């Protein structure tokens, strides 16, 4: 069986790439995609730890399922906000949507 740390290293790499994309990309849609990547890295970790510690219990799978649900809700609302901001100000760059800052 593949050793656990290989999964963890891979998930860490995925998480780092996601973090980079979230911080560095200017386009809001790309930022959301990067967040999806980060959530998936977390999910891989959850499932890997579950499989290697107590696979007979259901917790790891249930948690991962809930993470998927939340990731979907996050994408839905995030994209709706981006679309609205784009319609109002014709920009999808999060830094330019700063009306609330005053």
């Amino acid at each position, binding site marked *: 069986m593949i050793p656990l740390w290989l999964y963890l290293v891979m998930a860490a790499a995925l998480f780092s790439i996601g973090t980079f994309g979230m911080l560095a*990309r200017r386009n809001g849609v790309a930022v959301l995609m990067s967040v*999806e990547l980060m959530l998936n890295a977390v999910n891989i970790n959850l499932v890997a730890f579950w499989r290697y510690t107590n696979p007979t219990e259901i917790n790891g799978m249930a948690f991962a399922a809930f993470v*998927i649900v939340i990731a979907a809700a996050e994408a839905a609302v995030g994209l709706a906000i981006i679309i609205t901001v784009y319609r109002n100000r014709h920009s999808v760059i999060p830094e330019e949507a700063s009306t609330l800052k005053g």
Partner: protein
Amino acid sequence: MGDASLSLILAFIIFTILTLGGALGVVMNRNLFRGTIWLMVSLFGAAGHFVLLSAPFLAAVQVLVYIGAIAILFTFAVMLTRSLTQISDRFTRLWWNVGGAGILFVVLVGTVILPVWGGFTPSNDILFANVADTTQLGIALVDRGSETTQGFVLPFELASLLLTAAMIGAIVIARDADDDEKGKRS
């Protein structure tokens, strides 16, 4: 185990390449539609990893939800907010962020993964355990919980509430945008 077989290692390598390559494609790509396709490649690789970790249900759900639904949503959003494919600078503070992500990776590997390096060698009990299946997941989801079991009925209903809230919220936001547009036109 003796069956740490060639095909398993091969599958792990392929899925890792898909996952990380796709992720790089997402963050590097200039064109957002191609970025969506790369995202799907990456998430497909993650689904493969779920299969290797004996959670095929999660793998199927991953493909169904991400490739079936979220990909469609992202492509719709990309088309609705086009215009910026020609944007000259994709990144803000590129090198700072590259450095930051690199440091993050090193920190993660150093603090989280090094302690379990070589550890967690699973016993045969765990390797050949009857892994919890979908039926058990279903039972746990509507279980009120007791001394011995954990019930997930509250998160189950809260998930539904969250989805409802997300849907209504997103409709409110997006619909207002449409109304504004109409107001401008007329």
